[in-house]
């Protein structure tokens, strides 16, 4: 099997954020995460590019992404005190959008740090 290698990839499983991992992948699945620890290996090998879940669900029904985004926007906009929470397992770029979301809504903004 011919595997492509991504050198010095970054692992985001724990706060160490190791940036020296060599990922051997076939485009669908990562087969080997060189230098990753036991936690990082599980993190890399358990995620695939397969479509395992529906793109979006509203009230348990499969919907398109557009419908889900519009529903989310409507629900959040209708709320008096919406909460934006989490942001641990996501990128800084997405976190910045989350801050803008809380600002736009006049809502609450919080992360795992407060637990």
């Amino acid at each position, binding site marked *: 099997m011919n595997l492509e290698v991504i050198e010095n990839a970054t692992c985001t499983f724990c706060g160490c954020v190791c940036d020296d991992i060599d990922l051997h992948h076939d485009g669908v699945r990562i087969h080997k995460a060189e230098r990753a620890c036991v936690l990082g290996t599980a993190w890399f090998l358990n995620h695939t590019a397969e479509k395992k879940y529906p793109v979006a669900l*509203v009230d348990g029904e499969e919907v398109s992404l557009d419908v889900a985004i519009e529903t989310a926007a409507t629900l959040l906009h209708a709320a008096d005190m919406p909460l934006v929470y989490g942001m641990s397992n996501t990128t800084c770029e997405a976190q910045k959008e989350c801050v803008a979301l809380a600002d736009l809504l006049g809502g609450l903004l919080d992360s795992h*740090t407060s637990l």
Partner: protein
Amino acid sequence: MGGKVTCTLGEVKQRADFIIYWGGNPAECHPRHFTKYTIMQKSKFLPRGRKDRTMVLVDIRETKSAKAADIFLQVRPGKDFELITILRALIKDQPVRDEDIAETGLDRAAVEDLVRRMKGAKFGCMFFGMGLSMTRGKHMNSAALLTLAAEMNAFTKFVAMPMRGHGNVTGADVIMRWQTGYPFGISFNRGYPRYNPGEFSTVDVLVRGDCDAAFIIGADPGATMPQPAIDHLARIPTIVLDPHITHTSRLARVHITTAPQGISAPGTAYRMDELPMPLSPALKSPYPTDEEVVRRINEAIAKKPFWLPDGGPSPHQWTSQVNL
């Protein structure tokens, strides 16, 4: 945490000859911390590596990390704040009663030996984990330890650093600090950011039932929070963005599957010492990224009337709209 006396992991790797882990279990939770940064590395200043470094573990039980430690100090549960306060007194040669030391589960000889070693170090670093910051005393414990680190600088170089879990939780602190001035527990309900943990922190908000909608991203409170908080999430419209269908997704009105960060979503993540790392995703996901979905939700909300009762146009938005 403004004014924190800290450094990067690179400095620890190069210079720290005295390491304390307090209320953390790096051997199992941050497996490469020892080998990459703290005790195993050889450097210009510590050419013999492990032999040039001393490692102390302070915890309530003997975890796997204790095997790697030179000294293991078993503190009585809930007595971390007392022990830190005793250390703060002893480094300044203030008198401490035997019974106060005994209350922490340690004896005077062990505590005085620790003080001697701390003062004798060239570069000391204290890493504190959730065993310190999430138990009785919580942020007061962290604040006490950071103060101890600051005060140690009267004698030698000393720093402290939190052992952050969850991938990019450090990034969340940094981004919120950058955009609002505060690291977490923020409310925008007056149109500008206010900070008040306890009032605006999520568990408290949910248990009191203060919020009437929730947007959850990169977290699974449905699996980790106390039951009254989960019950409230199920009562209100909850929206979840996650690469998996999580416990929270099951009680949510809306779930959107997104690409996992670093595996198929590009971007930046912060290491625990607040160094930003670029991500190099290996796989192409069939799902959109968190960034794209939240931006599209923001665009959809921006088209609706502003939230003030008169529905007037949106005034100045506090946070900047410049792209990263």
